[in-house]
């Protein structure tokens, strides 16, 4: 089976490389993007199997990304958001717009892996 493709949108290089390493170790194919514009271009061209995105991204925030994905691209692929501030308002609007899950910084990679595999399984099983 071909590995699941994950788009990781995170502008903190350190966190990005740690998560990339752990996701790849788990068998995913990971593309890292460090700004919102690039993410938007990427998903407009071709959708990955799942998206993990920081909320605070330059140019195009994670919230905007959820909105764009669900309402413009009409896609239901799993998207998990990461944010340092567990700013309740942000989280609620992300869920309202259709984010699947949310994880607060500092991110525990093991926790993230479980959440990612759960969402992917649920979405692609059916």
């Amino acid at each position: 089976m071909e590995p699941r493709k994950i788009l990781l949108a995170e502008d903190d290089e350190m966190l990005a490389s740690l998560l990339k390493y752990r996701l790849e170790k788990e068998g995913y194919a990971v593309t890292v993007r460090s700004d919102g514009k690039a993410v938007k271009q990427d998903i407009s061209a071709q959708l990955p199997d799942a998206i993990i995105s920081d909320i605070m991204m330059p140019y195009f925030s994670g919230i905007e990304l959820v909105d764009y994905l669900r309402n413009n691209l009409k896609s239901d692929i799993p998207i998990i958001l990461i944010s340092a501030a567990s700013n309740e308002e942000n989280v609620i609007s992300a869920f309202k717009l259709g984010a699947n899950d949310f994880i607060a910084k500092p991110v525990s990679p093991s926790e993230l892996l479980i959440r990612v595999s759960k969402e992917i399984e649920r979405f692609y099983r059916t």
Partner: protein
Amino acid sequence: MDTRELLSHLAKLENGLDDFSFTELSTAEASALKRTFASFKHGLEEKVFGASISVPSSDVKSKQYHVDSKVQGTFQESTLIANVSHEIRTPLNGVLGFIDLLKDTSLSSKQSELVTALDKASNNLMDIINELLEYSKLAAGHEKFEKVPFNLANMIGEVAFLCKTLITSKDVLFKVHIDKSIPEKIIGDPSKLSQILLNLLGNAVKFVDNGAITLQVNLKSNKKNRVHLEFLVSDTGIGIANDKLKHIFDSYAQAESDTHLKYGGSGLGLSIVKEIVDNLKGCIAVNSTLGKGTTFKVILPFQKVDLLTDDFLPKVKENDTSREIDLTGKRVLVFEDNIMNQKLMENRLKTWGCDTFITDNGIYGLKLLENHQFDIVLMDLRMPKMNGYEITERIRQSKDSTISKIPIIALSADFSATDKKECKTIGITDFILKPYNAEELKGVIYDHISKSSAHISNSGTTSTKNDKALVNIEAIYAECMGQSELLDELVRLFKQNIFEFIGKVKMHLQSSNFQGIGFAAHKIKSSLKMLEATSLLSICEKISEVCKTGNDKNYLNFLYHQFLDEYPNVEHQIDEQIERLSPNNP
């Protein structure tokens, strides 16, 4: 006193504000600014017109009185102006504060041009009000004149230093010459003398585009217990025409009616100088040739310091100049309200490599002491609100022994024997007479810091503070699943993040972009959390907090420097821990 000038500035300010509000900006700050301005204007009109309306009626009753005593009239007038000016300052401060806030919002270039104009007009108005206040205080005899011993050469050095900071053109040469036969210490009012000289030198700087400015101090006469000193301030500027010279010391008379347009200023500067010189029982004269330059001559009497009074002088530590004094990285908290002195002190401490935080607010300073480690406190004893004695008492009463034992050096222009006694009772460690010599200050700071740190390390309380783990990479190492190359890579990225953060904060501090700083601090937090860099994290959290709630640039600057100081320690610990975790070193 003419209030027309004041009102015309007010009108200008209002125009600027209206222009500004016509552009699309509709932030809360803008409306708050308008409200503050309206209340300011209302208050001003009430004071000015209310006063002028009430004057005729009181005149009717007390006309006799007014005619009788012209001096009394001036006195009342001056008191009124002093009170009015004082009350105008408060709302104007509000206006200035909101303009500052407005500057931090994102503005179009047109808007920021208007805000700059608004800022300039408000600051001009503030300058005029301050001068007005000062002049009226002098005229009403409210101003106190001191008689304290001071070191003339040090004071002149300070004045020269400030004057040099005013000179922006490279084509202006500044020279100082002091007659060697003048006694080293004399008794008089050093702050008033520096005010006179700064005013005259400030004028010279304003009117000379290229050429020279000279300050010369001569010994005019030397009698048994007093000396007369002659201060000559000459410039090679535009000069003043003969028929204007005789009015030059009149209040509100600038040489040409258009001088104001080109050079600004309220025209009160020289009348203030004249008032001070008169009060000090000296004399002032001016000599000028159009196109050649101007020389102001001030002659002032001073008392000589005899052995008895010399005893009252705080003992100056004799510093061996060959002694190596290194104050790099020392943290100094300065309580000082005079902006000029703040600037001087900041400049000095910075050149010595100290981390300096200066405040005029007692409560705020005490809070800083609680949350941050300082090596020494420099305390101006005369401050508004909470004075130096009260602040010292509070510091000494602190439950935290690192706070209550911190050395406190009092700075004051005058120390009487009672002051000295009081200082000792409330726990001031040492004191320095203003104006002080830089080396003397440096020596005193050094002595007390080394004394107190010796004391603390004996008691062994700080060693734990320093050895505390500032960072812990074990958790992240565990996430790397034994991949030490990945750990190295992550640490490299961490360091890179820190450098980016430092660079961003530095840049945004320069442009006062608090939003940018807040964003950068927020971003770096996750990296700091991952490495459990608690000390850096707490600094960043404070930075975020300050950026969210206000625009306290001084405090941000301070936190930024604290971060810079702390980071090398953290980096050192990271490297140590990596060394320990590496597989070659089980």
